[in-house]
């Protein structure tokens, strides 16, 4: 599935505000915003950094591989999902897809469904992003 098509699919999630795909080193690959009242580039970078820290902290605290984070702020909910086909949770491997998908929601009315949808869409993009 093409990246932009994948982001379009996330628009169906209740409370959708924006979505983005990042490389594991933090470079934005694609961004989609339904609400222009905020800077998605900045939010995306912060969320992506948080995911990177989460993966590191999770491993070092013995909690294993952490691939999904939910950031709960007063004015938004942010889900960040890592897809990494490699064996090492924080490293990229040649020929294996490794990217991060960010979903920004206005509320958590359907947060469970949002996580399911994000997982589904994120994994469907792997063939496009396998290098």
């Amino acid at each position, binding site marked *: 599935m093409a990246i932009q098509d994948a982001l379009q699919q996330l628009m169906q999630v209740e409370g959708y505000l924006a979505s983005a795909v990042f490389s594991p080193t933090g470079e934005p690959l694609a961004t989609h915003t339904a609400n222009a009242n905020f800077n998605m580039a900045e939010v995306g*970078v912060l*969320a992506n950094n948080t995911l990177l820290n989460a993966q590191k902290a999770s491993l*070092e605290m013995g909690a*294993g591989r952490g691939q999904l*984070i*939910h*950031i709960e702020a007063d*004015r938004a909910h942010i889900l960040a999902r890592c897809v990494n086909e490699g064996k090492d949770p924080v*490293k990229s491997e040649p020929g294996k897809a490794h990217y991060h998908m960010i979903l920004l929601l206005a509320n958590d009315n359907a947060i469970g469904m949002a996580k399911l949808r994000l997982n589904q869409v994120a994994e469907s993009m792997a063939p496009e992003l396998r290098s």
Partner: protein
Amino acid sequence: MTRILVVDDEGVLLKSLVEGLQELEPDWEIEATTKGAEALRWLAEKTYDVVVTDLRMPEVDGFSILAQLSHMEPTPTVIVMSAYLSPAAEKPLQEALVDRVLEKPFDLEELRGAIKTCLAENTRGTLEGISLPTVLQLLEMEQRTCTLEVQAGDRTGFVYFRGGKALDARAGDLSGDAALFELFSWSRPKVKITPFCPVRKHKLSGSITSLLLEAAKAADELDLPTVDTPAQSPPPALPLLPDLERFAKQVQQTLANFAEKHELPLGLVLSFPGEIVLHWPPDASLPEHETVVALLGLAPDLEPALPGAAAPVTLTHVEAERGHILAARVALAQESQPFPQTVVLVILVPPTSPAPLFREQLFRLCHAWASEAR
């Protein structure tokens, strides 16, 4: 014997670079690490002829390495490799800091050639070193979110960046433009970059570039030196967190009931930028500093970037294979105070425990405490 240090967080690339270089140049003594912190330790202990470093790395990045190199004499030859260096950032890097900038991907021969050329030219001798204005310009161009700690002698200052925008500066009891101008005047300061920005309000009157020009103009008009200003009195200590112990006890008490039913392996209260203020259980083995830094990074300062009025609490829930990590960032002070107080509360929750219940409790508790503290 030419001694070379190579730093890159991409382990596979690093291994191939080192093995390839060693095969081509068996006389070179090459050391390599994927961790910036380890590179800093090695640089403090050993001498290298050439340092090859990536710029973007987690935790301690290439900018911190460049900053340390600037205080070394003689300064080694410096080659920076980066995949995403903006053209605007490349120019000052080449002019002020490094001998070569290699854009990834590059082939091994290119790196080998760059090292040999730099060694042959050896024109720099003693590198001028990274200046504070250069670091600030690079952070601005690379759109970084971070706190830059500046030290010169017993003086300490801070510059706060969010998405490359310099929001505020502090130097002693100065803040805003005055503090930044003061920092510009410090000679050969040491800089340390922490990947968090606790400041929300934009107090500087312009970009780093425009303020640099203004500072230079003012210095010209007054015929004042822009460096080597005599040391002033040391800045006042950061104000202590007002009720941190009380908050910690409240947290402990509130979570005690949960802890009875569900075994909580670890809880931490961390101050910015990384002191463990409280932990439980009392006999818990505490995480190392690098882990604490990563945990602090779970508490992003997202609120200012979101639409609507700002709120004091952000909570991150990490769903991992063998447990959940809950991290709450609590801003305790109003922005008008000199040093906005931020603490991070972290709980490790076993996979069998009801993480959503913990999360709800934690969120309410942090909100209540932040409201009270403000």
